[in-house]
């Protein structure tokens, strides 16, 4: 074949150059966003508290203000030889991996059907994917223990009422995995939804044309292109589950399943508390998460995931055909398990005068039901104050968090800034430190800082910023990776400053991703419990703590349940704005 040779001969000579000199890697644009100040801010927010944790891990005394010294020791490493650590770690790994898979499955399917298909009632299904975010995992776990405990669980009572010989036991590995998976699915959902709604259908069509069935298309094109989002959410979800204490506490311990978080909790709860050892475990976790982050970077760096290009973006919906209703059913099933049943259990608990029930027929007894607890909650000053504080703190930290995450994500994925790897690594650190340990680090940091922020709402905002840096970054990163850089460059060429180009091109294109990130941070800030527990004062009471106190009391179950229901409602209302921004299509 002569042509074959002749075309080959045209191949440009690939002259390998000597490795690029270090000089050359000067960071170029965008000068307006040059990375150093940003790195300083992020490092300050994250590394100072983390540094305290590190110091705690290797110093003889707990390095709290007033007694900070540098007597170092390795003796705390002995904690790893303690009986049960191995078993607990193993359990945590099993739970972590399976629940992460479950969360990715639920989140992924819902994200896909809402972003890309003709599923019935799309807006409603979108809401379904989101809603468990309004239910803190702590509350969700309690609700599920009310539902699924083997003896008095409402489901089991119902089953007995119906004469069915079947017992649900939520105090089991399966139960823990189910609840964790369900309540962390929204993270996966949000991250993947924004990434999938940025798909360029030509890329998918090409798969269909070249012989790939819809499934093959999803497998080879749609999902791989969403890989940054999938890996990002997998990382988030896994570490969260791995560190989740409340669900373990409520569901795993009664089932005699030990997990690492309960182990850490016990270390912290021992008297005197063994903070150093908890810190050691945190440091190990940090190393693991950094390695995973690095691995993720490696995997993603070699390829490109741009789906929004300057050759058009024709939003197209895939027709589900016969799968329309089964998938809708799947969404409804999830709604039932993650929202309706738990909320119903909470409402029932809030209105039932006696928590004890042997049969649903008990409810028809006179005086069995009383809605008074809702009124009590709504009239309580404490509740109203903390709700106000919560909203202020959550909105502020979500806004700031989104901005910082965008700046970091942009610097890491769009510029050639020298420090971008470092910046990403630093931003991911908080993910690895269990909240309880990080809470201490933040407490020490803001006590020793010579600025009078401690004891104000501002310190909560700053703490949330630090804690939620990884979530924000992962949320933004996947959208940035989906949009072609040429689009923004083009605006710069047409006379816009880089910042202006970012605002008028990149940001609007990433609208869905930014709105999702904002929503996620907002909800996380509303839910965050452990960290503020170290930082709040009676003046800066927030809702999550008030609810936690109610549950801790044990006796006030009715109010606690009522409060939780109202809490969920507040979160629902609060989520309205970012949801509005995030729905709809990108094209005009």
């Amino acid at each position: 074949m002569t042509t074959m040779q002749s075309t080959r001969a045209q191949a440009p000579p690939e002259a390998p150059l000597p490795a690029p000199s270090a000089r050359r890697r000067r960071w170029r644009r965008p000068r307006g966003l040059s990375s150093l100040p940003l790195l300083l801010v992020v490092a300050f927010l994250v590394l100072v508290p983390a540094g305290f944790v590190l110091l705690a891990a290797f110093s003889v005394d707990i390095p709290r203000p007033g007694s900070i010294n540098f007597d170092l020791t390795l003796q705390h490493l002995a904690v790893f030889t303690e009986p049960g650590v191995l078993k607990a770690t193993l359990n945590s790994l099993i739970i972590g991996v399976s629940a992460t898979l479950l969360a990715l499955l639920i989140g992924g399917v819902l994200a896909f059907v809402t972003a890309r298909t003709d599923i019935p009632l799309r807006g409603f299904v979108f809401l379904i994917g989101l809603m468990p975010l309004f239910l803190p995992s702590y509350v969700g776990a309690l609700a599920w223990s009310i539902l699924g405990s083997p003896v008095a669980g409402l489901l089991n009572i119902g089953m007995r009422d119906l004469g069915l010989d079947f017992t649900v036991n939520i105090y089991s590995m399966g139960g823990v995995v189910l609840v964790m998976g369900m309540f962390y699915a929204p993270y996966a959902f949000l991250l993947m939804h924004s990434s999938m709604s940025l798909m360029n259908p030509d890329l998918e069509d090409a798969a269909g044309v070249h012989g790939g069935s819809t499934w093959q298309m999803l497998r080879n094109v749609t999902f791989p292109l969403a890989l940054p989002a999938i890996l990002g959410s997998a990382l988030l979800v896994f570490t969260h589950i791995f560190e989740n204490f409340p669900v373990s506490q409520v569901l795993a311990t009664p089932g005699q399943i030990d997990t690492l978080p309960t182990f850490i909790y016990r270390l912290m709860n021992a008297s005197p508390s063994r903070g150093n050892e908890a810190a050691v475990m945190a440091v190990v976790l940090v190393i693991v998460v950094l390695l995973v982050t690095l691995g993720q970077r490696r995997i993603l760096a070699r390829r490109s995931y741009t789906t929004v290009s300057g050759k058009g973006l024709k939003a197209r919906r895939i027709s589900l055909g016969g799968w329309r209703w089964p998938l809708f059913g799947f969404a409804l099933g999830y709604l039932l398990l993650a929202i309706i049943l738990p909320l119903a259990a909470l409402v029932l608990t809030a209105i039932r005068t006696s928590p004890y029930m042997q049969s649903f027929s008990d409810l028809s007894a006179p005086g069995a039901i009383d809605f008074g607890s809702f009124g009590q909650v709504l009239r309580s000053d404490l509740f109203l104050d903390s709700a106000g504080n919560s909203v202020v703190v959550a909105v502020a930290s979500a806004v700031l968090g989104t901005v910082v995450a965008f700046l970091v994500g942009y610097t890491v994925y769009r510029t050639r800034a020298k420090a971008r790897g470092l910046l990403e690594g630093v931003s991911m650190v908080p993910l690895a430190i269990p909240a309880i340990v990080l809470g201490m680090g933040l407490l020490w940091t803001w006590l020793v800082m010579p600025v009078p922020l401690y004891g104000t709402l501002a310190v909560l905002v700053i703490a949330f910023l630090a804690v939620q840096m990884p979530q924000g970054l992962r949320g933004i990163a996947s959208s940035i990776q989906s949009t072609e850089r040429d689009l923004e460059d083009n605006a710069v060429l047409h006379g816009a400053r880089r910042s202006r180009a970012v605002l008028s091109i990149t940001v609007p294109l990433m609208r869905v991703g930014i709105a999702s990130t904002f929503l996620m941070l907002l909800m996380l800030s509303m839910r965050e419990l452990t960290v503020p527990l170290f930082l709040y004062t009676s003046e800066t009471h927030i809702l999550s703590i008030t609810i936690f106190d109610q549950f801790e009391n044990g006796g006030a179950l009715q109010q606690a349940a009522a409060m939780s229901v109202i809490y969920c409602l507040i979160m629902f209302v609060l989520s309205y704005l970012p949801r509005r921004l995030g729905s709809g299509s990108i094209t005009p």
Partner: protein
Amino acid sequence: DSPTSEAARNEVLPMPAKIDTSNGLVIDGERIADKELYEAAKKDKVVLYSGSGKESEDLTIARFKAETGIDIELTRMPTNKLSERVLSEHGANQLGAGVVRVTDPLVAQQFAERGVYVPYRPPSYDELSKADNVVFNDGQYLTAYYSAYTFGYNSQAVQGADVPKTWSDLLDPKWKGKLGVVHAGAGGTVTALAAFQIDAFGENYLTKLGAQQPRIFDTTSVQLEALARGEISVATLGFNSTYGAQVAGAPIKLVVPEDGVSGSFNLMGLTPAGEQSPAAKVFINWTMSKAGQKFAAAQGFVPARPGLEPTPTGEYQLPAADSKQFHLFTPEDAAARSADTIRTWNKAFHFTG
């Protein structure tokens, strides 16, 4: 008025018959504060950090406000977190609390060593020093009252002859799988209970209890909730918080067994900031006054102040602090025996952690 202040004012215990504020603060004849202190305190505010139960603290501060007319503000969190915060704030000279209350003697001791607590003698000091384990380090901190730990049952699931009366009743095979316990490592009060059980009935008792395959919980609250719903029928419980739940309508009844009740400490002290706060001082004075102690008793605590006439807690009557029936886990015990006790307990219940 909030439901809490209503309860504090009358439901739990009727208000004292006579509160005289004409010359300082005098309640039922006992001088709580002299004129100078009281006038200053009224312009001040108590800042209380507490690791004790939220509900009982809410009741207590509401009562304090009602009886003294002094403003008070509470920050509550679990003892371990509280201790971390107090020590850190103190180290940074930012400790805002005037009074700090904790449930763990070892934590209190640490506070004392670090100077979080400063010596202070309330008017009832002489009275208090007559009893053991109430005044520590010459008044650097005090036992406010004791918490009692017993067991209880779901009053709708368990009735009549089935109701357990003594600790040994818990070993009845009919409770197999229906018991609840909080593991001994979860805090001072549960460690105290385990120590009491070993002391009173031998290690064997724990082994047998473990063989009942009880459901093991991490925190009291989750367990209490499970008991109320009938998930478990009988459980070992903190008296005060359970009583609160019962009052709130949970179908739970407590047992004050003849063969003993485990007791643990509820300690408090004045901080350097409290030294400057008249209100904080009045709060300590009031807590250790007859009125304050009675109110604690009515809530389900065992008063620390000796020589008070017994005050019932609703339908129950807890033993007095100095009675045989009340087994205290002293700070010395805690220091010396905690680790061993927990280990023994874990072995008996095949529990790791």
